[in-house]
């Protein structure tokens, strides 16, 4: 009876159930997983360790390149920094850039070349009987003492009879002396130092005083009602920082156009839209003029850890395999800009340039003529965008306008 009943019972959970692992071996796949994980882990550790060491070495090396005294002869520096304008053979550009070969200025020796490199020139100059507009940037922010000494020596040794070697300590001394000197007022001021120079054209009266009206002064330094002061973000000299753009020396028409674009929503940036909404057409125009007359030293640095050689390639020669022409084909030699549609790029902050390229590629910024920047930005990879931004940040600032020290500018307020 019992037995029969039992037979018909539903099978109950087995209280003495033993997990099969107890008597079957560990399945092979588990071994595989364990071994795969171990190999993976070991490789990752090795790889990461190697990368960290590499990156560290690279940083030290980068830094070393910047500060090293051993930069080879000045020729390489000359080609990298001077030749886009003065040409590798020092012949300059007819009607635009004075020649170095046979230039009377070099009669003053490497000392005067160092002074020019530190201060830049901003005024008409006569070289070998031809008059030039004479806009040369100051390389004080772009080159160190040693580099300036090497270039100055190279230039005088190669292109003149008065060549001697210049010591970096002399450049350091000049740098201190000339910190607030501003740029040379054309050949007229240079001729005082280099007696070998022929009579020079007169230096025209600066235009900055005209641009500095009471309204502009208030807008730039004090702000007004619901408008923050320009200088509070863009700096007393319009030099900017990180992704706040540099405005000093930018073309007046370009700046006015951007302010107008912010105002009518063609260009997006919340803070700037608030500012621009409070400005009249006349004010945007005069603000543009004001910033275009500023000549501030560069405070930009290539801080995006990108490949500067690639950046230089894109800026000077482009990458035609990607269909990207050189930046300078349109933005002018050395990135000084071509008014009114092609802004100056040199000494612009790397994060700003890279961000703008990214917003063009993504479609957030659309106010470039013919959609030129959109297509070009989309053809660049993110590394390329950083590379070109870094290279442009390493260049000397636009050699336009007058030098104004911060004290001078702010003292006008009161």
């Amino acid at each position, binding site marked *: 009876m019992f037995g029969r009943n039992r037979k018909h019972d539903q099978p109950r959970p087995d209280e003495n159930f033993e997990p099969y692992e107890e008597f079957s071996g560990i399945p092979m796949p588990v071994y595989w997983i364990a071994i795969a994980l171990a190999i993976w882990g070991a490789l990752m550790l090795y*790889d*990461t360790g*190697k*990368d*960290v060491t*590499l*990156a*560290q070495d*690279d*940083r*030290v090396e980068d*830094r*070393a390149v*910047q500060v090293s005294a051993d930069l080879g002869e000045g020729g390489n520096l000359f080609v990298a920094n001077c030749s886009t304008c003065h040409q590798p053979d020092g012949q300059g550009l007819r009607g635009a850039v004075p020649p170095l070969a046979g230039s009377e200025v070099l009669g003053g020796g490497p000392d005067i070349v160092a002074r020019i490199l530190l201060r830049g020139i901003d005024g008409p100059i006569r070289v070998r009987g031809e008059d030039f507009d004479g806009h040369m940037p100051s390389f004080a922010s772009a080159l160190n003492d040693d580099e300036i000494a090497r270039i100055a020596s190279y230039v005088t040794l190669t292109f003149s009879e008065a060549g001697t070697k210049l010591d970096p300590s002399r450049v350091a001394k000049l740098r201190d002396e000339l910190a607030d000197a501003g740029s040379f007022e054309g050949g007229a001021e240079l001729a005082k130092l280099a007696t070998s120079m022929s009579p020079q054209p007169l230096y025209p009266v600066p235009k900055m005083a005209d641009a500095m009206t009471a309204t502009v002064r208030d807008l730039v330094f004090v*702000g007004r*009602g*619901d*408008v*923050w*002061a320009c200088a*509070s*973000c863009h*700096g007393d000299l319009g030099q900017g*920082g*990180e*992704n*706040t753009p540099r405005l000093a020396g930018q073309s007046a028409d370009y700046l006015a156009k951007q302010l107008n674009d912010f105002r009518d929503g063609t260009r997006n940036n*919340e*803070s700037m839209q*608030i500012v621009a909404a409070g400005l009249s057409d006349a004010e945007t125009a005069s603000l543009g003029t004001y910033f275009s007359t500023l000549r501030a030293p560069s405070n930009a*640095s290539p*801080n*995006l*850890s*990108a*490949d500067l*050689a*690639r950046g230089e*390639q894109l800026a000077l020669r482009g*990458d*035609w*395999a990607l269909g990207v022409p050189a930046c300078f084909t349109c933005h002018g030699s050395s990135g000084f800009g071509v008014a009114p549609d092609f802004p100056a790029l040199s000494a612009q902050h*790397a*994060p*700003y340039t*890279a*961000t703008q390229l*990214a917003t063009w590629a993504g479609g957030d910024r659309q106010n470039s003529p013919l959609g030129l920047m959109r297509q070009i930005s989309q053809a660049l990879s*993110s*590394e390329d*965008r*950083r590379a070109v*931004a870094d290279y442009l940040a390493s260049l000397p600032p636009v050699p336009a306008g007058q030098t104004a020290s911060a004290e001078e500018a702010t003292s006008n307020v009161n």
Partner: protein
Amino acid sequence: MNRYLPLSILALAILAFATLMLVIAPGMQIDARSVPAGLRDYTEAQQRGRDVYVAMGCVYCHSQQPRSPDQAPDGERGWGRPSVASDYVFDAPHQLGTMRTGPDLLNVGARLPSEDWHLTHLYQPRAIFDWSIMPAYPFLFEHKQQAETDDTIVILPPAYAPEDGVVVAGPDALDLVAYLQALDRTYPTPTDGLRDDGYASGPSADASSVEEGDG
């Protein structure tokens, strides 16, 4: 129970090893770093502002550690170069943070140096960014009928300005802004800068691949 001794020795040895590797060695490594040439200690006002920063819990939404380009596009966002250990030499305790509900602030003083902008933004973030989710801090400010001579008036768009009188910044707001303006680590990376680049594929490798790509 007669093997207490080896057991304790082993336990203590493990503890000592861990302490050595995880505390003492990194400590020595970090102590060996010098103060970066471009970094200044906080002034008194900035230090007070730092306390406000801590008290307001800014760290819950804002990190202070820009990352390397291989990890995140922080440089392109304008947040600055990747930070290294010595950037925090004057920060005790550091405000590294882990959350990025808002942007990284280690270089906010470089990218947004405007005192007026920060005051507006702290008083009411929506006055500038209508999409902002940052809380407003009106209690750091004072609503007055008439500003006194040394008051700092907050610039506000009409929609957010009080109907009468002006909004002036309180001492905590001014200190906080002073601290934010001092957050600027844009000087070049110190040569002995200590940083873990994680999965960075060495820059040298990148450079060579670019050269190959040239037509």
